């Protein structure tokens, strides 16, 4: 645990970052910028797992292991999403959400 910092402060910080990510995900119209917001949310939640593990159950390491899995899944997700976005750009010359209709039907 961090000297002089309670669990509530860490959870406040991660909640703020998560909702900043939600705000960005809703307001952005560019696929890449939306993906950046998703990264913000994922990172905040991974930090949550680690903080709760360290403060409440310091003798087991399950939260840290979960955090490693989250990081691995997030990296794979980013690589796949960027591959899809680049391919879409080659097809329709745009990364705006409103131009995407090819996967609709």
């Amino acid at each position, binding site marked *: 645990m961090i000297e002089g910092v309670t669990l*509530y402060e860490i959870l406040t910080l991660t909640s703020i970052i998560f*909702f*900043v990510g939600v705000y*960005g995900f809703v307001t952005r119209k*560019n696929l890449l910028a939306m993906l*950046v917001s998703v990264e913000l949310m994922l990172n905040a939640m991974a930090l949550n797992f680690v903080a709760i593990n360290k403060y409440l159950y310091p003798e087991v390491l399950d939260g*840290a292991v979960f955090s490693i899995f989250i*990081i691995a899944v997030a990296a794979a997700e980013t690589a796949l999403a960027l591959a899809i976005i*680049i391919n879409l750009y080659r097809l329709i010359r745009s*990364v705006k959400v409103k131009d995407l209709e090819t996967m609709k039907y």
Partner: protein
Amino acid sequence: MERLFFYFFGIMMVIFAVMAVSSRNMMRTIIYLLFVMLGMAGIYFLLHFNFLAAVQLSVYAGGVIVLYINSVMLINRIGSPMERPKLWKQLLTGMLSVLGLGAALFAVYQYPFKQANTVVETTTAQLGKQLLSYGEHGFILPFELISMFLLAALVGAIAIAKSGKTVKK
């Protein structure tokens, strides 16, 4: 001292996160995201999870950010700014986000967490042993699953990227 560092990283992360979701230049958005990742790694260091901090630095600050920068260079004309969302949409979304944040914080502060006041040092060796054990609190099955998953993601990314169809408009 550690409290000071925590607040430094926290304020830095919040400021850069807000800038990342509101900047209109795609390249700057990615660089602000990089600073959020660095602050996150700093907090992992403060929590004495050195291995996680190193993973955060190498996977996110090293790998993911480079991927993002590469794809921005491939698909976006760097000079052109993104269009600004409508004001009513910004206000409505901001209000809803603050409302959601309030609800989440209310739930967090209501719950009486029983903090364990023992300081236990965790080493990377312990983490590795737990990842590979198949007894109580062992994670061998998800570990193997995640390696298969990463392989599948790699093959999938290659399969998506090499299909060379173009639509004539």
